[in-house]
């Protein structure tokens, strides 16, 4: 029997528009949740939350443990220690995000559907950002709630009311910056592994360069050369803790936004259904 005799029906149902990025988000999240190693990474990234929660419980219930009582610096420190997991999640999920689509010519499949290049990028970014927020913003906000629950009062929250917007703002800046940079690097290659190596090199090389320059100049004014230092400096300002570098924080903020801008420019040029070499 010829294949076509098995039939083909015209579709009479409805078609929705403008939700393609949501489809990509859902597909991306569901896809990762089926990956056992990914689940292990997600669980590991929440260990600090558990430790901090225990710390908050002890501080709230044992007066002798006042030394471990939470402060704004505790939350700032929480983000610093999550950086390892932010790095791992970014590499694991982001390095291949566009590179693999380029390798398998998936871009022309995506963009032949009713979605724009912007929607495609939003779809890719949203998957990475959802998981990054899941290991930064979500546990940090939960820690605030846990503190109130263990203390049984709002004293800490009232005294540090800015923490909620600070956590939200810093999480967003961090997540947007690393996601954009990772996707931009991913779009430069057809190999996810190469894009991951590029991102790792960017972080470690810039950090090593900062170490050399600091040793030469004897000052931390050159901290802006390191990818992560700018984010750390901006984070200190947002959390109202003493700045760790002599670099003006406004310069660090400008570099953060500059990196986001450069990443957006690269993505605009690289995410196309047709690569034209004129």
């Amino acid at each position: 029997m010829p294949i076509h005799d098995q039939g083909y029906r015209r579709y009479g149902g409805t078609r929705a528009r403008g939700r393609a990025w949501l489809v990509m988000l859902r597909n991306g999240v569901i896809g990762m949740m089926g990956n056992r190693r990914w689940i292990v990474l997600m669980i590991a990234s929440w260990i600090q939350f558990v430790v901090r929660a225990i710390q908050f419980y002890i501080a709230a219930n044992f007066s002798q443990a006042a030394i471990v009582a939470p402060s704004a610096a505790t939350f700032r420190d929480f983000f610093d220690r999550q950086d390892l997991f932010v790095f791992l999640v970014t590499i694991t999920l982001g390095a291949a995000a566009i590179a693999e689509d380029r390798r398998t010519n998936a871009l022309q499949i995506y963009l032949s559907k009713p979605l724009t290049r912007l929607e495609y990028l939003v779809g890719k970014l949203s998957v990475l950002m959802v998981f990054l927020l899941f290991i930064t913003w979500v546990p940090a906000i939960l820690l605030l709630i846990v503190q109130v629950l263990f203390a049984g009062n709002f004293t800490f929250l009232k005294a540090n009311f800015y923490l909620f917007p600070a956590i939200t703002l810093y999480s967003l800046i961090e997540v947007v910056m690393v996601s954009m940079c990772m996707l931009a690097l991913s779009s430069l290659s057809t190999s996810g592994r190469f894009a991951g190596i590029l991102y790792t090199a960017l972080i470690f090389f810039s950090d090593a360069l900062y170490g050399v320059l600091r040793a030469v100049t004897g000052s931390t004014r050159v901290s802006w050369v390191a990818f992560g230092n700018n984010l750390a400096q901006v984070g200190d300002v947002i959390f109202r803790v003493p700045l760790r570098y002599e670099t003006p924080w406004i310069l660090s903020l400008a570099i953060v936004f500059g990196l986001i801008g450069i990443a957006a420019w690269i993505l605009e040029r690289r995410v196309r259904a047709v690569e034209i070499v004129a």
Partner: protein
Amino acid sequence: MVDTEPVVSLDNVTIEYGRNRALNGVTASFAPGAVGLLGPNGAGKSTMIKSLLGFIAPAQGRMRVLGLDVAESPLDIRARIGYMPETDGHIPGLTAVEFVSFCGQLAGLPPSDATQRAHEVLYYVGLGEARYRKIETYSTGMKQRIKLAQALVHDPDLLFLDEPTNGMDPKGRDEMLELVRDLAHNKGINLILSSHLLPDVEYTCDHVVVMDKGRIAAAGPIQAMKQPRGRVYELRVKPRGELDAFFDHLRAAGLECHSTDDDVVRVFVPGEGGARQLFALASAEGAQVRHLRPSVPTLEDVFAHAVGED
């Protein structure tokens, strides 16, 4: 009433890659049904399809697909068309049914409908038994079929098929052509089939647009284009001198000669001269006619005539 509005029209479209003009002032219209976009490699077929999808902006000219302007409504157009690209293309890490369902959802189908149609379409293209396999494990022929499936899942009104039989074995190629023919003639889907393979176009399409060097070389219904404006013969001769010199003599007399894979040459004799004119020319040159047989004009003759091939 038969709908005769063109499904695709181009008006003086020029597309440039730097200094290179891929399409040069192309004006054409594609009738409903199955239309073959025929031309040698580099003629501008794929460029035309990609520009119709909105992937490449023209330097000048306007294009309309299904009555919509490509520059103004690219998303409305993409919601109603299906595109099977020339090169391998899939979303990594997915099984066939996941991939096709995902493509359906991207095109706006609800998840349940997209999944149901993914199963149906995969059966239709002959991948029913392999639908739970990862696409990375597929053979070249299967990858061609999955590309057709993703283009069909949302039930488009118009299909762009870019070299759909590339890399397929003879059996797979025949099955693919059957599918294409069935879609166009029994399922009511308009399609534009880009190919450099004349038999593929001739078997599946009713109309043809022949491209060459970024221009339209010929266009029209295949049957009408094959109507002889003279006679075509298969000819084998033993010339007195060089064979090429003999054919140059025929060409100088206004005949067209196209070599074939066999040892015969297809000769188009315009007007009413027919075999008598051929014999006269051979006699004048002292050539022995060893074989002369009237032949039915093929699309290959039309194509060769349009692009000026020998």
